[in-house]
């Protein structure tokens, strides 16, 4: 996914010299290609994220299309007020990339982990929120973000867990993508980012055959597709590497409660910070998001069928 990110960024940068890449001294090897291909469009602003966002707002006002890169713990969390006031308030076309979302930086602790970014960003007006699951979704999200006339937060989580899709995508902004079609009409899985793969893996192990949906566009989201899923099912399981408060699970529940209420199980991060140091897989387990933990929760939930 990171190579796809770099390739797409280079493509956009070469096509449009108004595209400027701003980084807060992060993304060392990730930008080698961009720096080589578009050297005048690369700005390392130093370890100063707040200034980076204000700077991007000024650049956007003079006709540029800034792509602001940081770790998602910093962009958008550290600079959420700058995004709100300097950017979103004035509908400026700036793309924010929050890399390493969730527990990617498992060994580094709470400062580098980010499970509140969707909740914070999706409550800001004029700010779209994207959360791609693989390189194909990322390419589509980045191209869509480039065409947007207002700001986008693009969440990049665990990036090396393989493809979900087989081909480049061609959906509309806001669409959910059906990753797997099941025959059981009682249950659907809805997932975003890294958890799409987990949802798909769990669906393959169940005795019932369920639909699995991926959500690359969290805001705006296609309400009619979500309402259709709610109407046609009795249970939904939502998977996300994010807090259970304010993320995709909350969003689906908001839409369901206003249209076709049904029971929803959230496979998400509880109201707690990570306690221990360890691998990414270890931390997923600590938070109950690994395959085995999630599978058990889903089985227990489905016993109520």
């Amino acid at each position, binding site marked *: 996914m990171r190579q796809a990110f770099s390739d797409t960024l280079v493509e956009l940068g070469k096509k449009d010299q108004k595209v400027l890449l701003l980084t807060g001294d992060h993304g060392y090897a990730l930008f080698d290609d961009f720096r080589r291909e578009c050297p005048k469009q690369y700005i390392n602003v130093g370890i100063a994220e707040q*200034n980076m966002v*204000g*700077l991007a707002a*000024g650049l956007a006002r003079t006709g540029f299309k800034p792509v602001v890169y940081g770790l998602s713990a910093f962009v958008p969390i550290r600079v959420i007020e700058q995004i709100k006031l300097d950017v979103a308030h004035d509908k400026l076309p700036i793309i924010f990339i929050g890399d390493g979302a969730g527990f990617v930086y498992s060994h580094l602790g709470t400062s580098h982990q980010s499970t509140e970014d969707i909740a914070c960003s999706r409550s800001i007006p004029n700010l779209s929120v994207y959360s791609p699951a693989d390189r194909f979704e990322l390419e589509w999200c980045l191209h869509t973000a480039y065409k947007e006339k207002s700001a986008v937060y693009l969440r990049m989580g665990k990036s090396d867990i393989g493809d979900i899709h087989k081909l480049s995508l061609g959906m509309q902004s806001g669409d959910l993508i059906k990753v797997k079609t099941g025959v059981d009409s009682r249950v659907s899985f809805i997932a975003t980012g890294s958890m799409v793969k987990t949802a798909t893996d769990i669906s393959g192990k169940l005795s019932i055959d369920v639909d699995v949906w991926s959500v690359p566009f969290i805001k705006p989201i296609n309400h009619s597709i979500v309402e259709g899923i709610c109407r046609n099912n009795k249970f939904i399981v939502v998977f996300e590497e994010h807090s259970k408060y304010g993320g995709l699970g909350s969003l689906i529940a908001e839409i369901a409660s206003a249209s076709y209420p049904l029971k929803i199980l959230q496979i998400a991060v509880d109201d707690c910070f990570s306690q221990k140091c360890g691998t990414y897989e270890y931390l997923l387990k600590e938070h109950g998001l690994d395959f085995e933990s999630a599978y058990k929760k889903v089985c227990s939930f489905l016993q109520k069928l």
Partner: protein
Amino acid sequence: MEFNPKKLRRTVLDMAYTGSTAHIGCALSIIEILSVLYKNYLHYPENNPISKYRDYFVLSKGHGVMAQYACMLELGWLNNNDILNYFSDGSNLKGLSDSRIPGIEVTSGSLGHGFSVGVGLAMGLKLNGAEQKTYVLVGDGEINEGPIWEGALFAAHNNLDNFMAIVDENGFQAMGETQDIIGLGSIQSKFESFGFDVISVDGHDEAAINKSIEKLWKSEEKKPKALIAKTIKGKGVDFMENDNSWHYTRLDKESYQQAILSINRE
């Protein structure tokens, strides 16, 4: 347009009285600075506040916005109804600067934002090969904020000599004197050490402000500029000068009339 300081101050008082608003002292301290900028430096082709070819004036200390409204009234960008209906239900002009009003560049009030946006504007103008200038007015209390200094480092590192910071050094912030709350020491030395061309000036002496800005722009050095304007909070109204309670106090009929008399006397 004269941007007569007495007239601008009267407009500020009219708004403050009509709207029963706070933040009077910090608007009165920046009157001469704005007067000189609008009269002599800020170029708006065809008097268009959103012209693509305008100079940018960023009021980062959004609390002083009534002073800017007073200038915008002179420019014809606001009218008397805007002044008479200040703070009425459904009106447009807020108590802190809002970028949706043509002529106001950024939304402020949360401090320390406008400086970085101004640095971005200056850099964007440079990249576009444009000759326009960017001015950012900050308060001395406001420069407690960290992003100001992040932006200052960036502006100097990138030789943004089309950027000018103006510091309204009135010596007060919300809760008291700056020297008692977060001592700033020499603001001039701080900006110099950050790589700026700096001049300190009496912020109520229009001729001196004018000359200092001209000198800063004429400097051959490829540095961002900073004008440190020593001002008096509440300037022009005898009972408000250096009385920080006018950061919060509202005018009643009697104090409004006294304030107008004080301005007319000066």
